[in-house]
């Protein structure tokens, strides 16, 4: 799940339904030979709109006209409904409203509970501490430490600044 939904995750000028197959448009379900199966694509999009409570519930609306949170839910629905065993998520709640943040967090936890591997990349310490089972901190391109989610922000902050990391590496 890409962190930049505006330029990478979505094509803002597309209809919602067109974005809900981005990257999976080779799937036979969405095609009739070389032609797009428009009915199947729209039905599939509407199904996702229901499940992920995307508002306004209109698969034909231009994606640019959805709010940030709902745009993110379009991406989330697209990637999660494929049932991946491993999901790498970048900045899932950047620029997203509070209601949608809660919704997205719940979905990520559900993935975990189904026994899927989730790698969450985020700059939000609160988010990381709330969702993670293990926290790996990177500094200057290297993993400098591993902590439990109950580690304090100060501890993580020192690791992020490279202070603790150097000590650990020296030991």
């Amino acid at each position: 799940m890409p962190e930049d939904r505006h330029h990478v995750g979505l094509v803002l000028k597309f209809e919602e339904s067109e974005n809900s197959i981005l990257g999976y448009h080779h799937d036979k379900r969405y095609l009739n030979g070389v032609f797009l199966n428009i009915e199947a694509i729209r039905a599939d999009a509407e199904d996702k709109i229901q499940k992920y409570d995307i508002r306004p519930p209109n698969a034909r609306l231009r994606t640019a006209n959805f709010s940030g949170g709902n745009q993110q839910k379009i991406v989330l629905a697209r990637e999660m409904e494929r049932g991946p065993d491993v999901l790498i998520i970048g900045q899932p709640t950047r620029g997203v409203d509070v209601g949608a943040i809660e919704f997205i967090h719940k979905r990520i936890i559900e993935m975990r509970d189904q026994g899927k591997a989730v790698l969450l990349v985020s700059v939000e310490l609160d988010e990381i501490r709330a969702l993670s089972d293990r926290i790996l901190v990177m500094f200057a391109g290297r993993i400098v430490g591993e902590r439990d989610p109950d580690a304090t922000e100060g501890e993580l902050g020192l690791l992020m600044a490279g202070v603790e990391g150097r000590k650990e590496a020296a030991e």
Partner: protein
Amino acid sequence: MSNPYAKLPGWAEYGLIPLINLVVAFLVAGLVVLLVGENPLDAAYHMINGAFGRGEYIGFTLYYATTFIFTGLSVAVAFHAGLFNIGSEGQAYIGGIGVALACLWLDQTMPWYIVFPIAMLGSIAFGALWAFLPGWLQAKRGSHIVITTIMFNFIASSLMVYLLTRVLKPLGSMAPQTRTFAEGGQLPKLDWLLSIFGLDIGNAPFNISFLLAILAAFGVWVLIWRTKLGYEMRTMGHSPSAARYAGISEPRIIIVVMMISGGLAGMMALNPIMGEQFRMQLDFVQGAGFVGIAVALMGRSHPAGIIPAAILFGMLYQGALKSRSKCRRSHAI
């Protein structure tokens, strides 16, 4: 909440705005006519009358429109993938080779309905070939398509001068053109289509390649909005980074789209070569490739917009020719 992507309703964006553009263009042109000391209303009357006043004039208008539909579609297809193909001119010119070869080969032995499809395939093949090279250069070498297609227009021009003065010219003739085709190389006129409306086609070269142009327009609509390739093209056109994320091969799309664009431009050659002159002449494209850019822009790269835009430009061409002859006459008196 402010919305930077706010969109005008469809009727305003696709109907009202082009209409306002048109009216403003007419007003500005009217000022120019006023400056040279003529009555702009008279000029407008001569122009519109010259384009639609008689069955024959309408036939000419639609004949020009046919040409512009092909080149407009050619430019529009490339636009959808974010490519600016300025080479429709050269691609149409080279496409003429395919038409001429098919006609020179078969015109004396086959009827037009056999020659026409073969000439069509020939025009597509040659046009696509001429667009393939800039496409390949863009995809593999990063040479910008705007620059290379312009350069290819000049190469096409020189190549055609060579071919028409040395290779395709009949022996003992001075004119840089092929021989005149026999009946097999001549397309039937659409006089029956105009006579439905009680119009007489007169000498206008309005021919069945118009119907092919309409079919091509429908084909382009299907391609862009109803096929997987079209989906990939549009993704790339709107957002190259999203296309990369979605696993769409950029070089493949560039090359394929340029070849489709070139093929459409090539088909334009059918209209003047088999429909009007019955031979290939030097510079038969006459800037239609560049008009195609304007047609595609005005038609918002949508086939349903390109057809009326092409008819508008056909009207301007035919109307301008007619009103020019009117002016000359009044000055002579």
